[in-house]
C-alpha cells in the first residue's frame, strides 16, 4: 500500500456515506478510497452509522404482497454481474469508468502554460477534471470560493502548506490561496473537483478562465 499522508475529511466521508455529495466530489472520494485503506475503513464506519440510523428511523408498513412481488423481481432478474477486476494502470476503477480507460485514454486539452486538462462529465453544480502539470511547472496562483479537492494520481505537487504524493488528497477551502507546483522528475496528474469556480489572483488567468472553464 502506498504511503498516503493526506486523507479525506470526516465531512466528506460522512457525506459520501450518506449519498449526498455532488457527483464530482463522489468521484474524488471513490477514487481516493480505492487507493487508501485508512479512508476505506473510516468510510465503512460512517456507513455503519448510516445502517444504525436506518434501522432506527421508524418502520413503514410494506404492501401486503410485497414479499411475493420481491420474489418475482428475484425470479425475473439477470444474475448479478461479476465483480470488476482491479485496474492495473494508475487510474482506479471508478475513475477509469469516467475516462473510458487509463491515462492513455485521456483526451487532453491545453489550458496554457503547459498545463492540460480533461473535464469529466458529471451532474450537478460541482465539476471535476483531470489535470496534467509538467514536472516543475506551476498552476497559476488561485483561491477558492467553495471547496476544492485535489487527488494526486501520478508525480507529486507542493504548495506552501505541504507536499502531496500519489494517493494524497488536498482539501482546500476559502481560507487557502495557493500556487501548486508540480515536483521535478515526473509530470503530475491530478483529479480535481470544485463546487465553485476558482479565483485567480492575476489578470491573465482570469481572461483564460472564460475560455477554458476552470
Amino acid at each position, binding site marked *: 500500500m502506498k504511503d498516503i499522508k493526506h486523507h479525506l475529511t470526516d465531512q466528506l466521508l460522512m457525506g459520501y456515506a450518506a*449519498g449526498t455529495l455532488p457527483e464530482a466530489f463522489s468521484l474524488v472520494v471513490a477514487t481516493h478510497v480505492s487507493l487508501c485503506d485508512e479512508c476505506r475503513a473510516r468510510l465503512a464506519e460512517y456507513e455503519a452509522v448510516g445502517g444504525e440510523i436506518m434501522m*432506527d428511523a421508524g418502520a413503514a408498513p410494506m404492501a401486503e404482497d410485497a414479499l411475493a412481488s420481491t420474489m418475482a423481481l428475484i425470479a425475473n432478474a439477470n*444474475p448479478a454481474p461479476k465483480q470488476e477486476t482491479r485496474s492495473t494502470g494508475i487510474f482506479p476503477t471508478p475513475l477509469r469508468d469516467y475516462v473510458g480507460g487509463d491515462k492513455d485514454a485521456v483526451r487532453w486539452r491545453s489550458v496554457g502554460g503547459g498545463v492540460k486538462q480533461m473535464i469529466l462529465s458529471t451532474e450537478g453544480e460541482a465539476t471535476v477534471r483531470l489535470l496534467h502539470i509538467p514536472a516543475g511547472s506551476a498552476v497559476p496562483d488561485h483561491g477558492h470560493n467553495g471547496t476544492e479537492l485535489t487527488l494526486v494520481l501520478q508525480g507529486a505537487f507542493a504548495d506552501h502548506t505541504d507536499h502531496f504524493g500519489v494517493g494524497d488528497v488536498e482539501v482546500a477551502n476559502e481560507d487557502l490561496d495557493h500556487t501548486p507546483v508540480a515536483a521535478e522528475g515526473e509530470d503530475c496528474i491530478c483529479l480535481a473537483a470544485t463546487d465553485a469556480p476558482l479565483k485567480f489572483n492575476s489578470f491573465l488567468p482570469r481572461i483564460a478562465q472564460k475560455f477554458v472553464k476552470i
Partner: protein
Amino acid sequence: MFVQSETQIQDGPVPVDHYGQGQNHNVRTKRKPSRVPNTDTSQRIAWIEEIFAIRDKQDQAAFARLFAHFAPRIKGFLIRSGAADDMAEECAQEVLATVWRKAALFDPSRASAATWIFTIARNRQIDMIRRARRPEPEDLPWGPDAEPDQEDVIALSQETEKLGEAIAALPEKQRELIERAYFGDLSHSEIAEQTGLPLGTIKSRIRLALDRLRHSMR
C-alpha cells in the same frame, strides 16, 4: 457456524415476530424519548446466518425473515429522506431483491448486515429516486482464504451494536443533526465537523480485516 455459548441462533423457520422478542418494532413509527433497547449481537449474527443461507441454499424462509425486518425500515428511511410512499415501497423491494442477488458478495468481517443493507439502499435511492450516477470505490477481491474470520465477525457485530447504542444515547440535538445528514437534509458543507460520535473502534477492526485481506492477496 457462528454459534457460541452466549449467542443463541434458532434454526429453521421461526415466526416473523421472533426478533422483537416481546417488543413489536413495527408499530413504532416516530421516535419517542423512551427508546427501545438496541438490536443485540445475537440478532445481528442471526442476520448474517440468514444472508449466508440465501447465498448457499437460496433459502426463502431465511429471506422472508430478513425481509420482514429490513424492508419496512428501508421504506421508513426512504420516506424520511423525502421519497413518496409508492416510490419508497418499490425501492425497498428492489433493495431486498439486490440483497438476494448479491448475497455472495457480503463480507461480515467488513460490514454488519445492517451496514451492508444500508449501502445497497443508499445506492438504489441515488439510482432510482435521485436518478444520479454513483461512483463506487474499487472493491478488494477476497484472497484464497475466502471465509472471513469468525472472531472478526463477532467482534464487528458487537462493535456495531455499541455504535448503535452510542448514537441512541447522544443528546437529542446532536443525534438529530446526524440523522439529518443521513436523510439528506444537510449538504456536505453543513455536516458538523464535531459529530460527537464515538468513532474509531469499528475503523480499527475493519483496518485489521483489510490488512489481512491485503496480506492474503500477496
